[in-house]
């Protein structure tokens, strides 16, 4: 492991901004920090950069303790949410700034700057002033500056969140290509995001953060298939996973007075008792002979419909693969795909998952 964090903790005015954070990262890999706003993602990125000093814990890069190393001596680059560039310099000088600071020779500076600009799609923009660029272009300049540095760690703090929806989609594609080509072998890329779909699309390992703690670290599909606890299940799904309290007893799942589901094969061996069951919105299916629910709200998006229903004590969101406008208070019959159901114990930890995880 090239970047190792051990027990990073930071407390400000009684609030935990980092709570015993530990992880390991390898060179040449992309890691996504996934979490809601205020989960501690920005704080963690700034701690790795050295802008924030933790109260306790250690950070080691290539076996070297970064504890006493000031920001300007660390081998890092960072891209912020807010399109940060040097306003008094043109595009070329912006990208060249860190290289000039490190006294790289002019020929190499020229080559690296032009390569970086080319890889973000800004050929021919070298002479332009920063103020004349659009938001997306400014962010590309910021990215080019980070790439030209060829730093050991590249930190990206929700870089696309201030851009238009469609531009975000486009840049995400481009980022992926850039990341896999230029910086492949040597750098560690750390990208923070609140959007689980973005985390999946970037394709690297995912570290789930919540309330200043690391909840789970693993490949994207592992987080998807086997979320370690209910909180990870909520954060890593959009819409959030449906969670319901229920019990397992005499061979079936009891979700309420009149809601019973057959026991799926992967629940075999679970002791009867109280559990929290989880089911994704997309595993809720419209069926003729299912359980009856009342519609609270239906929203159409493209070729899918989000259906918010209530039944007994439970409220669900279903993602149906069709377009239909349901009226509020209408009754629908839904079937819950038990083959995809998760079981968490009452403390929230994963007990059984359709993909084989859990105890």
């Amino acid at each position, binding site marked *: 492991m090239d970047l190792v964090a051990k027990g990073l903790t930071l407390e400000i005015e009684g609030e935990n901004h980092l709570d015993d954070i530990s992880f390991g990262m390898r060179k040449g890999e992309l890691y996504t920090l996934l979490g809601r706003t205020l989960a501690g993602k920005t704080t963690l990125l700034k701690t790795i950069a050295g802008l924030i000093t933790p109260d306790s814990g250690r950070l080691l890069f290539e076996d070297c303790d970064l504890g006493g190393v000031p920001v300007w001596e660390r081998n890092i680059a960072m891209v912020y949410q807010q399109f940060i560039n040097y306003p008094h310099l043109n595009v070329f000088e912006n990208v060249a700034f860190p290289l000039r600071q490190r006294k790289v020779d002019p020929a190499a500076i020229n080559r690296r700057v032009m390569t970086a600009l080319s890889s973000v799609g800004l050929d021919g923009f070298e002479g332009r002033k920063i103020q004349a660029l659009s938001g997306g272009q400014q962010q590309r300049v910021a990215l080019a500056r980070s790439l030209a540095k060829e730093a050991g760690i590249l930190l990206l703090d929700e870089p696309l969140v201030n851009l238009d*929806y469609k531009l975000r989609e486009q840049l995400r594609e481009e980022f992926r290509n850039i990341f896999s080509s230029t910086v492949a072998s040597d750098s560690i890329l750390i990208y923070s995001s*609140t959007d689980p779909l973005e985390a999946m699309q970037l*394709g690297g390992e995912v570290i789930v953060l919540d309330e200043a703690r690391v909840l789970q670290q693993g490949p*994207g599909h592992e987080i998807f298939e086997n979320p370690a606890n209910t909180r990870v299940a909520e954060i890593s*799904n*959009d819409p959030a996973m449906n969670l319901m309290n229920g019990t397992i007893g005499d061979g079936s799942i009891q979700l309420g007075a009149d809601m019973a589901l057959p026991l799926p094969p992967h629940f075999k061996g679970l002791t009867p008792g109280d559990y929290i069951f989880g089911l994704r919105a997309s595993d809720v299916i419209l069926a003729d002979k299912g359980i009856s629910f009342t519609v609270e709200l239906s*929203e159409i998006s493209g*070729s899918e419909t989000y259906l918010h229903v209530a039944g007994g004590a439970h409220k669900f969101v279903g993602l149906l693969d069709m377009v239909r406008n349901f009226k509020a208070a209408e009754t629908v019959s839904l079937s819950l795909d038990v083959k995809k159901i998760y079981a968490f114990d009452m403390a929230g930890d994963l007990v059984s998952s359709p993909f084989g995880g859990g105890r």
Partner: protein
Amino acid sequence: MAKIDLEDIAHSYDPLAREPVYALRKAQLSWRNGGRYAILGPSGCGKTTMLNIMSGIVGPSEGRILFDDVDVTKTKTAERNIAQVFQFPVIYNTMTVGENLAFPLICRNVAKDVIARKVGEVAEALGLEKLLGRRAKSLTADQKQLISLGRGLVRDDVAAILMDEPLTVIDPDLKFRLRRKLKEINEYYNSTLIYVTHDQNEAMTFAEDIVVMDQGSVVQIGNPQELFERPSTTFVGYFIGAPAMNMFEVRVTGKNKVSFGEVEFATDTDLGTIKTANVKLGIRSEFIELSAAKVKNGLQVDIERVDDFGNYQLVSAHNGGQAIKVKVKRETPVPGDKAWLKFPEKRCCVYADEVLV
């Protein structure tokens, strides 16, 4: 509650210039009473200008605005009886949350018990009931935005509630609840809601009708399903839906057939009227059928990568220089290198000079 009509509205911020640049090109729009609308478009398309014209903050350089057939073009904002919510929280820092919410009612001399009731209702709907006594200054950004939103909702007799990207700073799970609350308010009070955004997902899930704008012009108006299945221009096809609609440059080779390279696709449109050579075929990634085996009249593609999005897989493929994206279910096995794509007739949209035929 009012029907709003925009008659021949156009706006330029510098109308006296020799060649005025129009932020909003001439348009004719009607917003029915109690409707739930979204104005959707990229940055700079004129959507905020249109919103500000309706609320009266900006006076249009041309055209008229009518509320229930009464000309209000010259009426000041306060008299138009509009509630407007902005992208960033606009709150009165020195007052408490409760006082902030009550402010519009206090200004209109509403009875105290009515104020208390309405403030209570709105606070509960937005989850602010525990914070009513707190000073507004000490809250987080999304709580402040909720107050801003609440202030726009507390008056139920407004002609329309205009919102300019109000949910940008809100967490995704709260967004669901707020959208639902807005819909409930729309149904219960029958107030017109107009929501400006650049996020097509928000527009699609929120609105009954969406007005798509680009560079000052209204490009298409329709419900989410129409815009998704039959976008009237290639721009709408690109802007709505994630990912954007796949576009192929094709030649017309029959009454309702087009050709892409060697492959011929049948469509359900009469292509006899097309005179131009700029013809495109558009089809959504959700509707393309993917198979590992060779299919008659199918397009052979090389698979570049398959992304696992949890609920579905996104296949990125190409045929020569043409990139294509296909959405398939998670369970569907995707072949490693080659596949054949079939385009169902009903789902093909043909565009001549970027406009739907």
